[in-house]
């Protein structure tokens, strides 16, 4: 650092100091980031190229429904619209169903759009449940659409979807 000259004003000197502070660490970083840490950084990026896309979501839904039409309604997907931490997002799926042996919800499937995989969970229910209700906590890697599909014993599929905004994503951060 240049020794402070008497003719330099106080403010100017401070500017210089701040400038040096800014320069210092980054200059040091430039010198010490070796090939290894650069590669580690590059590897970090790779797995997230393989996101579940809307296409993958549609494919996963089709796998469950077998191409049957999916109706909107009857399903209530309860998930906060704005999520601070994507690592644990409370999610409740409730289906309007009498849950009798003749007419009950056989299964509830939940999918997402932008996690690395479209599947979240599949839950199988029966009249022994009394209510078609499942609650759990999920991870969300990005702001995205979450879809719940209910399969009834009469062979119908009902669905609900919600768009969720996530401020801190799951899966993406380093473990450090």
């Amino acid at each position, binding site marked *: 650092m240049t020794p402070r000259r008497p003719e330099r004003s106080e403010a100017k000197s401070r500017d210089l100091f701040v400038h040096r502070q800014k320069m210092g660490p980054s200059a040091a970083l430039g010198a010490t980031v070796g090939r290894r840490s650069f*590669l*580690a*950084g590059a*590897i*970090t990026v790779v*797995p*997230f190229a393989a996101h579940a896309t809307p296409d993958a979501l549609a494919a996963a839904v089709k796998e469950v429904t077998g191409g049957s039409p999916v109706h909107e309604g009857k399903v209530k997907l309860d998930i906060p619209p704005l999520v601070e931490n994507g*690592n*644990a*997002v409370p999610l409740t799926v409730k289906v309007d169903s009498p849950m009798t042996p003749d007419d009950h919800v056989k299964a509830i499937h939940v999918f*997402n759009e932008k*996690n*690395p*995989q479209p*599947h*979240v*969970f*599949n*839950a*199988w*229910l*029966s*009249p*022994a*449940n*009394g*209510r078609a*209700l*499942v*609650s*759990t*906590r*999920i*991870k*969300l890697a990005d702001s995205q659409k979450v879809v719940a599909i209910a399969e009834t014993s009469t062979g119908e599929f009902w669905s609900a979807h919600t768009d969720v905004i996530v401020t801190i994503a*799951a*899966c*993406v*951060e*380093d*473990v*450090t």
Partner: protein
Amino acid sequence: MANVLVSAPKTAKKGQVVEIKALIMHVMETGFRPGTNGRIIPRNIIQDFSATWNGREIFRMKMSPAIAANPFVSFSAVASESGTIAFRWSGDEGFLAEHQVAITVT
């Protein structure tokens, strides 16, 4: 033995719908995250969860890496008869945990 926390009523009236909550300690490592050395940490999740009432299956769930760490599941069941509700979690790396609670139905 994994740490398990289950919440279910000890007594219920016949035909009553009871809420059952099950929580288990597990990392639910997704298999998509790099560790400190830059290598991907292998997937380690619970894949299956099931609950039986006196041996009869009442709930089953297939989990994916998108289930949060320390999986929590809540569902309901109709109180049919006195006995035990048994829970079973199984997953990667030979993970297996079982838990039972007793319930009296009047």
